Every structure is written in C-alpha cells, then in structure tokens.
C-alpha cells in the first residue's frame, strides 16, 4: 500500500518535472539562439566597422608589374617619377560593343607646376598646376607601375609593402561592396574585392 503510494508520488513528481525540464531546455535553446544572433550581429557589425589592420605584408610570391607605355617612359626620362598620382580603373564599351579596360591616370609634378593625364598609357592632356610656394615634398614611396587594374587586396598590400592600414567599409547606399583603405601616403578603393582607385599622396613636413 505504502509502496503504491510512493510510486504514485514519484509519478506526480515526474509529471511536475516534465514541464519544468521543457522550460529549462527551451530557455537554454533560446539563450543559445540569442547568443548566436548576437554573435552574428557582431560579426556583421565588425564587417561594417572601420578597422585598423596591423598584420604584416602578405607574402603572395612574385607580383606582375604594370608595363609603362612609351609615352610614360618618355615622361619619366624628362620629369622623373611623379610626386603624386591617381589611377582609376574601369570598363568602357568599345565601338564594337565589347568591354574594354581603361586605366585613367594623372601624374602630378607640383614643384614643376604641371600634371599629365594618361588613358591606357597614352598621354591625353597636360595641365598646369597653380600652387603658390610649393612646400618641400617627401619622396613618394610608390610608383604607378606598382598598381594594376582589379588587383586583390593582398596584391595591393604586397605591391605597396603596406603592413599597417585603415579599412573603411562604405555604406551600401553609397556603393555596394566597396571599401576604402588608407596606408602611408596612400589611399585606395576596392569594389567587390577589386582595385578600382588608387592615389599616392604627396606628403610635406609640418613646420
């Protein structure tokens, strides 16, 4: 009789414990899911946040340099390497409607007061640079040959020898999958992981 009563009590306890167990398991599950969501959101946030990266220059083996065109070689002979330069990489439709790569670059010679524009290596314009009292400029640690169309981030970093840089992801409302990068005397932009803009910046000493 007493045994029967004990069994009945145990059965009642089990019945009481079952919903409790479900609640506990449910709570643990919810905590895990919430934690997962939180980490996923953190990861997304991390992806979208500006970052300072100090990871050393990537070792990706031999890099292929851009071959300067004859007009550019001639200019180098006359003026030397530019004191600053900007290169844009993009595509255009040719007369036969095929897509062609375009390398539009400007070379700045501040101390000589002149800038040159090249499209696919051909000299297309020479413009005066009006600057009063050009300050003494640091030698530019980069040359235009170091950068080619649609390089990957690692290729740019290896080519420029950058081990420290700032990465700023841009809002997708501005440009989808685009990031800007800043290194020593250098800024560049990538879209879908491809180099589309690079600018080597002239630096001057602050007095």
């Amino acid at each position, binding site marked *: 009789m007493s045994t029967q009563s004990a069994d009945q009590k145990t059965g009642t306890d089990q019945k009481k414990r079952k919903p409790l167990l479900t609640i506990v398991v449910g709570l643990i599950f*919810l905590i895990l899911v919430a934690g997962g969501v939180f980490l996923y959101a953190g990861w997304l946030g991390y992806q979208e946040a500006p970052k300072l990266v100090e990871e050393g220059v990537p070792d990706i083996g031999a890099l292929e340099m851009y071959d300067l065109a004859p007009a550019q070689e001639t200019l180098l002979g006359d003026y030397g390497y530019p004191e600053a330069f900007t290169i844009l990489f993009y595509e255009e*439709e040719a007369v036969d409607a095929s*897509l062609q790569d375009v390398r539009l670059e400007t070379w700045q010679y501040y101390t000589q007061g002149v800038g040159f524009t090249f499209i696919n290596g051909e000299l297309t314009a020479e413009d005066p640079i009006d600057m009063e009292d050009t300050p003494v400029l640091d030698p530019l640690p980069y040359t235009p040959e170091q950068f080619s169309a649609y390089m990957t981030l690692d290729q740019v970093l290896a080519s420029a020898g950058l081990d420290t840089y700032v990465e700023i992801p841009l809002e997708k409302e501005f440009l989808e999958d685009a990031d800007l990068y800043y290194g*020593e*005397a250098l800024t560049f932009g990538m879209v879908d992981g491809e180099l589309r803009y690079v600018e080597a910046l002239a630096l001057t*000493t602050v007095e």
Partner: protein
Amino acid sequence: MKSKSWFLLLVFGVSLLPLTPVLAEEVPLKTFEDALALAYASHSILLGEVDEEEAARARGGLMAPARGSQADEGKAALGSLIHATKQQRNSLDDKCRGLKAAAKAEDAKCKQQVLNDYCSAQRAKLNRRIGLLHKLRGDQRKLFTRLWHSIKRSGDRIWHAVGPVGRRILRRAGQDALKIAESGGSLSLSVVKQILIRHAVDVGVEELDRLVTRGIDRFLFGQVALARAAGVQNCTEEDLKKAKERLKSEVDIEPEEEEEGENLPVFGIQNELVSGYASVEWENFIHIAAAEGYSPAQPYTRAVMMDMIFNIKGGTFSGSVSGDLHGKEFSHEEWGSFAVSGITGTIKENPQGSGYLLNGTGQLDVQVRMEQTYTDGAGKAYFYEHEDQFSSPIQIEGKIMILNVTWELDMNGRFDDGTKSFSVNTNDLELGTWQP
C-alpha cells in the same frame, strides 16, 4: 508558452538568414563613375569634409564632436559621403554645362544628345544616392531595422574585445585614416607630416576635376565615334543602344566568314615611316611637313612611328601614330610633334576601287614651335617665336591600299569643324602579319 517559444525561435531563425537576396545577376559594368566616387569619398574622409547640413548640426550642438558616440561618428562618416557625392555632382554639372555649351556652339547635334542623356542619367543617379544617404543619416528606418542595427552596435563592442589578433576597431575613421596616411605607422606616433592636398585644398579639387573632365571627354568621344561607325544620325541613348547591338551582331557574325577564308586576316604594322609624307597643321599658322627627298632648301627631318592593327574581317582598326618633325629654311625653323592615340574605327572595302576605307576617331596631341629671325630695311634684326600645344579629339578618315606584301596608307585627321589637323601618307610599306 510553447507556441510563444516556437514563435520566438522562428523570429530568431529568420533573422539568421541573409538579409539580401541572392540573385543570379549579370556582372555589372565597372563604371568610371563608381571609381570616381571612391576618389571623391577618399578625399572627403581625408580632409574631414562633411555635408554642410551635418556641419550645421554639429555647430548647433546636436552632434557630438570628435570622440562622440558611435552613432554620431557614423553620422559624421555619412556626412563625408554625402559631401563627396554632392561634390561629384557639382563637378559633373560644371563639366556638362561647359560641354553642352560647346556642342551647341558647334551645332554638334549628336554630341548634344549624348550629353543630355548622360548628364541627366548621372545626375539622377547621384541625387538618388544623396537621398539614400540622407535617409540613412536621418535614421528614418523602420523599427526592426533600427533594432537590428542596435544589436549590431552591441556586437561591435564584443568584437572590439575579441576581434582577431592584429585588428582593432577604430572610433574615428576619418581622423585615424588621416593619421595613418600621414604617419604611416601606429596611431600613437606623433604626426609630423601633412598631405599636400590638405595644405592646398584647391589643388586636390582640381585633380578630381581633371579626372572628371578626361573621363567624360573619353566617354563622349566614344559615343560619337560609335554613332559614326554605325552610321547613326540620332544619338539618343536608345538609338545608340540599338546601334551597339547591331555592331555587336555584325562582329559576332564575322568568325563564320573567317572559317571560309574568303577575306584577309588581321594585319598590323608597327614601324617607322620609311617612305612617305607626314605633316601637322595648326591654326593655318604652322605647317610642318616631312617627306622623303624633300627640297634641299627645306631640310626637314622626321620620324613617324605607327602602330596599327587592321582587323579587316572584323571590320575594325586600332592603333596610334606619332611623329617628330623638324625643319629649317634660312632663318626659319620649326619643330613639331604630334601623337594620335587611342585610334579606333571601322574599316571596309572601298566601293569605288580596290583597297579599304578607314573611318574612326582618336585623340590628337600637338606641340609646335617656330622661330624666325629677319632683318628690316635698316639692317636691324628681329627675332620672332611662337609656341603652342593642343589636345583634342579628332575624326580620322583614310584609305589603305594593299598590294601583296606592301601597302600604302593615306590618313587624315580633322577637327569637328572640318579643318585638317594632321595627315600621314605612306607608300610601299611592308605589311606585317598580326597573328590574331
């Protein structure tokens, strides 16, 4: 309780899914305007430029300065992007205004139509971008989106602590980017350098303007060339699109003919002009000519380099021509150099005789100089000099005669008003074979 848990699980589960739909889209064109947008954004961030409206908020104390909350910093960054986009739009407007006025003065209808379509489309695109960024800045987002971003911001703090080794999340993107650019090293280094375009802001603005100018010039010229190649009179966006499709289909058909071996293969030439004549004319003022065996009284020397590929089967030709010319006659001396780059166009059989006709475009760069010394009646000597340089797109037309392994080329470049700018005439040049 149970149904609520399942509902919550469903909500969280759904939130784990990627928010952007994965679509099999065409690879988008890597446009000039997008590359340019990166340049403008980079300058704005480096120079700490923000949209005026944003700056006004900051002045009014609504926005925390420097190391404020992350939300404020995000708004400042958005302000930079808005500023950059507005600058790009202003530069586009200026360039479009100038080009439209020039096209109107020339009565170049095709150019006007191309410009109208291009300028209004680009302006609309930039305005749309400004609108989206404004909306983002104004935080006029839906509740769930705001909540989601709030969670993400909390996530930032976690990643700030546990992010991969070697990565640190910054709080002031623009300022820190600037420090890195100027110091090149750790942010703790004292900055002793300054970027020149911060020292001379106008110079930086002009550099961006130059990129805009050259990019649009090239686009415009390409579209006009396309219209010419396709024989299109009306140059609206729609007509040009149809012309492109037609040209593309014509090119696509060519390989079938190649298999039949009926026409000539692709030919190319890359050599110095060894027999012929070249000249550069400029404003009817300077006329420098060079020719083999020219009069001894005018001992002109010349070097003309050509680099051409004629894809006769494909109906196209491309290449470049450049030349250095020098002549002296008594007290008169002239120097000139010209380069026609980016030549592209169509080549077709000459309906009035053998050979082929060329029609295309290129970019002409001319540099000329003359010196003249003369003596007046009283025996007094005068020295006169003139120097000029010019760069302009030109129309190119020409004729090519192929005689077995030699060929002759007669090519003339003209400005839009019809005046001749350069000419190259050759004879008995050896024809190189270009392996396609």
